[in-house]
């Protein structure tokens, strides 16, 4: 009985409940809705964690499976949702302040799609889940209707998302034409031990293109900085972390354990993934240097991180797969606190310009310290968490013998250190601007940032919990694969 209440069902029910509650609650009591949504989000997170300990059977004839990957990433997505809900409540919406229930409810639907995605093992299911995620996000990105930038961000996301959908659907059509099915286990059975036909490779290429848009990999990255800058900050965080992670979960599922985990496909697509990884790391790192807007800066930083994960994916092995899973968690823990800060910065100053960081350390030493630790962790400085993540990427590349990827990765990690130092330098060495706004950051922000900084340190020294998580994501995978056959 309880197994029907998987996170997806509960997420959709919660979203519907919130919208209904908005209609039923009298206008004077609306301020309860944000609190309700936060509480429900946290309850769902606890439920998802609890359920990941329970054995779950496969349902819908292999369309929807529960394996290590889905068990590790459903809590990831729901955690993103909790974070987004927490900061959505404080997003300064201006004159649209009254109609914001959808702003709180839509992320629940989007997260339901993400969780479905983590469990899907059929391209048609993947398509439907991806669209559930994407269409909610188009709406959310354009939600701040009085700001032209937000509308443009929504439009750009929609056009790019539509393009990626087109590639994906075309890939699915060609997959039907060559393999006769879109179910992973059947494709494997059909294609194993044969040389890959050009039509199959074409289908894989189309699907990879569709997903490359989602993870903002070069050369399909151009939308990311614009959309990240224009969208409301909570949605930017969701796009940058949850949506990107979803793309990688799909790539892992497709290339490492499902559908195209074939040597014949790998022979062609490993070099492509590695080349894309190299290009993505290089562009993300170099283009971040001149950025003066924190949201654009984080977009390029996210592109660079996607590049490292693509490099790990290009090693095409189990170690590469575990590395990506661990890297995503490290990315979440280091990036989300920064987005929380960016939103508070926008509340105080009206935009996320980097010059507002000048002299922050004298004004607010707590947030400055937390932010510094997060930025250094993103840069991959030992002994912080990001260092373990980057190190595991490099180890995977080394053991796979991918020397060009390794060399570029290491060089860009060093260059990246330079660009992560830009905000840190601004906080500690720049003089405070003369016009000091009277408002200070709320105390909860100080605590969150300090906590996040401490997490970088603690998990950096003792990455055992994360390693266990990654092992969990790996362990049942192989058996799950066999069950599929």
């Amino acid at each position, binding site marked *: 009985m309880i197994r029907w209440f998987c996170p997806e069902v509960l997420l959709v029910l919660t979203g519907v409940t919130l919208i209904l509650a908005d209609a039923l609650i009298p206008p004077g009591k609306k301020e309860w809705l944000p609190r309700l949504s936060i509480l429900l989000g946290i309850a769902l997170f606890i439920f998802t964690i609890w359920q990941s300990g329970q054995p779950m059977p496969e349902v819908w004839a292999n369309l929807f499976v529960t394996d290590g990957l889905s068990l590790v990433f459903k809590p990831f997505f729901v955690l993103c949702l909790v974070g987004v809900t927490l900061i959505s409540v404080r997003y300064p919406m201006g004159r649209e302040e009254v109609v914001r229930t959808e702003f709180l409810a839509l992320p629940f639907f989007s997260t339901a799609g993400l969780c479905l995605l983590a469990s899907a093992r059929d391209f048609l299911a993947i*398509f439907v889940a991806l669209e559930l995620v994407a269409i909610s996000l188009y709406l959310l990105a354009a939600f701040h209707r009085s700001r032209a930038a937000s509308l443009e961000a929504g439009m750009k996301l929609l056009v790019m998302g539509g393009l990626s959908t087109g590639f994906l659907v075309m890939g699915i059509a060609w997959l039907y034409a060559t393999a006769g099915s879109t179910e992973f286990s059947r494709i494997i059975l059909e294609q194993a031990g044969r040389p890959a036909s050009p039509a199959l490779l074409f289908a894989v290429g189309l699907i990879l293109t569709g997903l490359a848009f989602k993870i903002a990999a070069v050369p399909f990255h151009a939308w990311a900085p614009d959309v990240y800058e224009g969208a409301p900050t909570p949605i930017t965080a969701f796009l940058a972390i949850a949506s990107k992670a979803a793309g990688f979960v799909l790539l892992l599922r497709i290339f490492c354990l499902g559908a195209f985990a074939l040597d014949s496909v790998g022979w062609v697509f490993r070099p492509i993934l590695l080349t894309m990884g190299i290009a993505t790391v290089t562009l993300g790192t170099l283009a971040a240097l001149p950025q003066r807007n924190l949201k654009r800066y984080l977009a390029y930083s996210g592109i660079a991180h996607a590049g490292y994960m693509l490099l790990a994916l290009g090693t095409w092995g189990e170690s590469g797969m575990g590395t990506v899973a661990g890297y995503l968690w490290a990315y979440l823990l280091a990036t989300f606190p920064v987005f929380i800060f960016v939103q508070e910065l926008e509340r105080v100053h009206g935009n996320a310009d980097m010059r507002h960081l000048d002299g922050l350390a004298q004004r607010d030493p707590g947030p400055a310290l937390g932010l510094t630790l997060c930025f250094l962790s993103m840069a991959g400085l030992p002994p912080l968490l990001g260092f373990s993540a980057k190190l595991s990427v490099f180890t995977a590349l080394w053991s796979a013998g991918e020397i060009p990827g390794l060399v570029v990765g290491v060089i860009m990690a060093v260059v990246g250190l330079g660009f992560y130092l830009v905000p840190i330098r601004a906080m500690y060495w720049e003089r405070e601007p003369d016009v000091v706004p009277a408002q200070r950051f709320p105390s909860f922000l100080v605590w969150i940032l300090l906590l996040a900084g401490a997490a970088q340190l603690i998990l950096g020294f003792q990455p055992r919990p994360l390693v266990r998580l990654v092992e969990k994501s790996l362990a049942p995978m192989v058996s799950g694969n066999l069950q599929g056959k």
Partner: protein
Amino acid sequence: MNFGEVTLGHYLALSLLLFLIGLAGVILRRSLLVVMMSLELLLNAANLALVAVGKFHGLPDPQVAVFFVITVAAAEVALGLAILVAIFRIKRTTAVDQMASLRF
């Protein structure tokens, strides 16, 4: 005049052609309205391929998939038009090159 039988290859070639036209439209056209029409063309090219594959291989699944794609495309366009109207209210234009508030 007899051009021979129409095969799956013909349909797939046509769908690829339509796909490329749609892609070119998305990349090159200036008006957002036309860009969205091109997106539709892109998805319908894929639909054509799906239907043809279903017909020639005798599979029901691809033909069912078409309904999913149509539904999703409709939702996407409805949303796109809504955003377009909102953009037009603020900027009084739907030209792509006027969408430049997000540049560094």
